[in-house]
């Protein structure tokens, strides 16, 4: 059967672009008010569409951001430089490059002329400055192209006026307008004339149809690649903010503990290089001339601590509480065969390479903050309130960051730096140590899963999945987006809690498995949590893909062909087929080695992953090969999509096999990458092939988080086939094989 996912018709949305008074061409764009509306369900499919089939989280983002005026700012300067202020964060996901490609495409400008700069926090953007949910390209694709197309039209109109020709007679290429008689004018020389508000632009501006794209869809290297390989790329703590001194915190021995007293403040203040010792709510801060001295002083502090909210909590209790909270599946009808499975996933650190960090310069009457922030508006509002400053006296700069994976939705380092700077009346550069980042940083919530699938006569009759999770903290502005759009959601969802809404708008099944139901039960634990790349999907869909293999085995089917038979659309099958072919599904493997396959669809994109695993050395299980196929609708930069899929694969290798956190009496035991066993070169496949399908649609789907869930399923399934064991508890190998750092 050829099905289709009813999707909101986003092509109907249009954008209005306005001229800004400036010496050279400057434009802003906002969306017109024809907001998206969910389409009715297609009743012909055996499994009714899940909410995420009708309207997914990304749609909510697009809807919430639509009314914000002055969304995007583009300027063409007299030297031909094109500057685009991007109201999002770049953390390695390749967004700035993809946006530069879109701008260069519509302007017919060289990619090298485009500078994409990260916008400061602008509260007037409301819901339109949050980076998450693999949504940036989805929400920016239309307005960025419209803005750049308008700029091009104005440059052409300015050249036409100068030469006394009709704009339609002129062409553009490589940053130059050309007349039929051979005259040329580069964009820089037209930038002032194009800024003239009286300039007539006959015909307006329309973005190119995809058929005329010359850059979109072609692989492009990162625009900042050279800066990265020469050490010139500036991250937060590399910025030269005059007078900003290194600062580290001594943090409590349990999560969320408080400072009672510092016994040796004076002695520590007298240590070499130490400038200040100040107490803030989250710990005791040391400011010093160098980080080396600050770290020594931090270690020398003698602090008595108050309790935190989870002081006696350990993994075993979390597990017990999750199991108790998770309601059992419905009883199957008498004599109906079924597959039952329960899964546990440990807490996982985000562990971005660049630890949490921020620079703050707080004065009597104003403050300036620099940090890697994915929700800068909430950060600015919170920091202004905390400092007791009016909002317009607080400037928050968004700095390109060394990874995020969800972590930088929170701005704890920025708030801490602001508090320390205020207390010691000097600018500071605050850095979390790796140990603190691993232990006190946020975590992907531990989860427990109960899945029951009934089947008969070759059909899956029902698929029931109950998820219990330590509560995920969404208090970073996402809540406002969902609240603001709740009224437009399909019936009933508007009343669900934030987590339920997120769960229901992101997690869906790609298969016709009859009556398909999911529930989420969250329990508060006091452990600081946060969305982790793919939020609920890595665990939820990962577990489901394992059960799909077990259903196939129970019914005597091949895991690939079984999936193929139950997938809903041809587009899905095309992705799965390609993975099976390219990965030589079914090729003979030595004992202890096996292939595994899995599929995932989300963010209007779909992917299949096929891996090979070698479990012959139980102390070093290795994924030896991976084939990943991704259909993201319209890949703006296939090379960037490929990078995201490789990243998602490494996340899955790590968290499925070895990387997790042991919560022990209110604090994770792990304190570094030697303990939180993130994959290194020796743990990752030597053979990785990623196939990004050419455009299958007219709009880009999300790609940043897409790779994780299918890879989790494929690796677990390969492990199951290689070892003959059932993968049930993740990470699969999770011994405390190290001596924890002291608390």
């Amino acid at each position, binding site marked *: 059967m050829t099905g289709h996912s009813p999707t909101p018709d986003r092509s109907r949305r249009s954008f209005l672009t306005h001229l800004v008074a400036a010496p050279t061409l400057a434009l802003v764009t906002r969306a017109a008010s024809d907001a998206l509306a969910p389409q009715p369900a297609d009743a012909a499919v055996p499994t009714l569409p899940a909410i995420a089939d009708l309207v997914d989280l990304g749609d909510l983002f697009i809807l919430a951001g639509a009314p914000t005026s002055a969304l995007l700012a583009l300027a063409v300067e007299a030297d031909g430089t094109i500057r685009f202020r991007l109201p999002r964060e770049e*953390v*390695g*996901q*390749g967004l700035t490059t993809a946006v530069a490609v879109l701008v260069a495409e519509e302007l017919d400008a060289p990619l090298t002329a485009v500078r994409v700069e990260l916008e400061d926090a602008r509260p007037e953007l409301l819901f339109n400055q949050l980076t998450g949910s693999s949504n940036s390209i989805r929400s920016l694709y239309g307005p960025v192209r419209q803005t750049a197309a308008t700029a091009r039209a104005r440059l052409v109109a300015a050249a036409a006026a100068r030469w006394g020709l009709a704009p339609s007679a002129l062409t553009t290429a490589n940053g130059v307008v050309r007349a039929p008689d051979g005259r040329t004018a580069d964009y820089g020389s037209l930038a002032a004339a194009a800024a003239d508000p009286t300039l007539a632009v006959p015909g307006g501006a329309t973005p190119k149809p995809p058929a005329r794209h010359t850059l979109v869809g072609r692989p492009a*290297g*990162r625009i*900042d*690649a*050279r*800066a*990265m*390989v*020469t*050490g*010139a*790329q500036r*991250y937060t*703590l*590399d910025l*030269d903010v005059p007078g900003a001194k*290194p600062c580290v915190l001594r943090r409590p021995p349990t999560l969320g503990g408080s400072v009672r007293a510092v016994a040796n403040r004076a002695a520590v203040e007298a240590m*070499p290089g130490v400038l200040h010792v100040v107490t803030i709510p989250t710990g005791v801060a040391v400011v010093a*001339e*160098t*980080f*080396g*001295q600050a*770290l020594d002083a931090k270690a020398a502090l003698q602090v008595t601590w108050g309790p935190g909210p989870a002081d006696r909590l350990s993994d075993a209790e979390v597990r017990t509480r999750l199991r108790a909270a998770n309601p059992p599946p419905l009883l199957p009808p008498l004599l109906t065969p079924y597959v039952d499975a329960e899964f546990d996933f440990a807490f996982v650190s985000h*562990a*971005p*390479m*660049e*630890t949490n960090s921020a620079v703050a310069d707080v004065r009597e009457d104003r403050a300036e903050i620099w940090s890697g922030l994915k929700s800068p508006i909430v950060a600015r509002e919170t920091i202004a309130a905390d400092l007791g400053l009016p909002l317009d006296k607080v400037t928050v700069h968004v700095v390109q*960051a*060394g*990874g995020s*994976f969800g972590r930088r939705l929170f701005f704890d380092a920025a708030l801490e730096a602001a508090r320390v700077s205020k207390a010691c009346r000097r600018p500071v550069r605050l*850095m979390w140590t*790796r140990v603190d980042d691993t232990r006190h940083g946020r975590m992907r919530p531990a989860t427990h899963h109960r899945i029951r699938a009934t089947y008969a006569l070759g059909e899956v009759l029902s698929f029931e999945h109950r998820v219990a999770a330590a509560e995920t903290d969404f208090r970073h502005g996402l809540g406002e987006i969902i609240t603001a759009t709740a009224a437009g959601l399909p019936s009933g969802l508007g009343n669900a809690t934030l987590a339920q809404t997120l769960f229901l708008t992101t997690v869906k099944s790609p298969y016709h498995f009859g009556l398909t139901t999911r529930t989420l039960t969250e329990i508060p634990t006091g452990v600081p949590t946060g969305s982790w790349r793919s939020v609920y999907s890595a665990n939820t869909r990962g577990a489901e893909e394992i059960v799909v293999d077990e259903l196939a085995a129970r019914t005597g089917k091949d895991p690939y062909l079984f999936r193929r038979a139950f997938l809903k659309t041809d587009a899905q099958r095309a992705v799965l087929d390609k993975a099976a072919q390219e990965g030589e599904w079914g090729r003979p493997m030595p004992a202890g080695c096996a292939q595994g396959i899995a599929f995932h669809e989300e963010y209007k994109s779909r992917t299949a992953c096929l891996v090979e695993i070698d479990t012959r050395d139980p102390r070093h299980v290795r994924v030896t090969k991976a084939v990943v196929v991704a259909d993201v609708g319209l890949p703006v930069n296939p*090379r960037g999509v490929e*990078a995201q899929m*490789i*990243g*998602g*694969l*490494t*996340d899955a*290798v*790590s968290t499925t096999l070895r990387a997790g956190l042991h919560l022990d009496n209110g604090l994770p035991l792990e304190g*570094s*990458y030697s303990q939180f066993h*993130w*994959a*290194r*070169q*020796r743990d*990752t*496949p*030597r053979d*990785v092939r990623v196939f990004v399908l050419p455009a299958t649609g007219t709009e880009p789907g999300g790609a940043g988080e897409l790779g994780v869930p299918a890879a989790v399923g494929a690796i677990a399934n390969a492990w199951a086939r290689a070892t003959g064991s059932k993968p049930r508890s993740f990470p699969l190998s999770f011994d405390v094989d190290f001596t924890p750092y002291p608390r």
Partner: protein
Amino acid sequence: MPSHTFTVNGRSVTVDAPDDLPLLWVLRDMLGVRGPKYGCGVDVCKACTSHLDGTDVRPCVVPVSACAGKTVTTIEGLADGDELHPVQEAWLEQDVSQCGFCQPGQIMAAVALLRRTATPTDEDIDAIANICRCGTYFRIREAIRSAAAKMRAA
């Protein structure tokens, strides 16, 4: 305060610092050389990897006193002016970087490997223990293979 004189990226420097102050902080906080990154401070992540007299070291655990009279090369000192080192070129060709934060260390580790052997095996590449949290390992592997081939041909 003891004084230490050594060479950083071709420039002679003298710093007054405690003997045991790690080189990483001398570079970053005293000399403004910010290519080497902090990722752990305990020789685990390898993000700070730089060269001391041509050998790869982790400046987060090298005391400044150990550098006296020696030559320190960081990622900033690898290229010859505008001309990139072949390993940096290979990194661009493979578009290795994602967030980029680990890459100065990855590149310095790869350069050191190719100094030890012109024909690194898969096992040699596996032995590079630098963490890349973004998971760019496969492109790193390809870039090292490509750089090695080009350097042999040169």
